[in-house]
């Protein structure tokens, strides 16, 4: 499952990094994190970025730079179909049919 490998790893590593920030890593976890950091220069970059408070605050600012309201309008317009009420006639027919069926059932059971 190569598809999910990224997400699984990302979840675990994010967890390790958060524990690192809170200084809650066990020696074993610390080892895992160290291994990951030394695996690739981009890993180290992210680690440094999270460790610098100035950079962390900058990145949080970037995280919040999205216009959430505007995007929500666009997304909900495209993804949530408006569900209009069925017209009055249709609703009336539904109730009338239901009524007739119920009356028939009552009559049929009464006869027996």
């Amino acid at each position, binding site marked *: 499952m190569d598809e999910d490998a*990224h997400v699984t790893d990302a979840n675990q590593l994010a967890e390790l990094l958060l524990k690192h920030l809170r200084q809650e890593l066990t020696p074993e976890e610390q080892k895992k994190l160290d291994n990951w950091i030394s*695996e690739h220069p981009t890993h180290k970059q992210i680690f440094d970025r999270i460790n610098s408070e100035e950079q962390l605050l900058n990145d949080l600012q970037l*995280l919040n730079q999205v216009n959430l309201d505007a995007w929500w309008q666009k997304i909900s317009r495209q993804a949530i179909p408006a569900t209009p009420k069925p017209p009055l006639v249709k609703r009336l027919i539904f109730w009338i049919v239901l009524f007739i069926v119920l009356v028939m059932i009552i009559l049929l059971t009464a006869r027996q």
Partner: protein
Amino acid sequence: MKQQFPDKVLLSEFKKGSSHAFKAVYNLYFPSLCFFAKRLVDNDAEGEDIAADSFIKLLNRHEFFDTLPNMKAFLYITTRNACLNYLRFMQKQVTTKKDLALLQSGADEHVLSHMVHAEVLREVEHEIEQLPQRCKEIFKLIYYERKSADEIAKQLDISINTVWVQRAKAIQLIRTNLLKKGLLSTLMLFFTMNNGFKM
């Protein structure tokens, strides 16, 4: 105001297609998804477009998701694939050195790094979101909106001196240790004591 649901309720409402549940999941994941996409394609507008498309796909399949981690995985995977497609497409148009490097060597590491980064930020943001309203407001004005003491004092109708004192202390606290457990509650306590804010 962000919608607050217990996870179970949120999931069942989401499956039913409730727009409130959609919005709650949106608030939960959209900022970090955008951050991830923007960093990966190195283009803000394109990244936000891609993240929005992924989100529409999630909502269109709302009845198929049973857990929040499933939704998150779907969002990241869909976004990652779209970003890589976009980079491949761009590579054919104009070959920029950076994109080429990303695609040829270490695409996996880049994807993973940005995903991890986005997730860490989402969690930190979540912690900040847990702060009481007033405390969060001041924190965000100072650090996200980079407002001056004057502006904050006017906006919140408190004295400039109070803002200065708070800011100095907040900066000090954040410098020493932003995320050590308990710091945010210290910050909170400090805001409470200094202002008598009703939390």
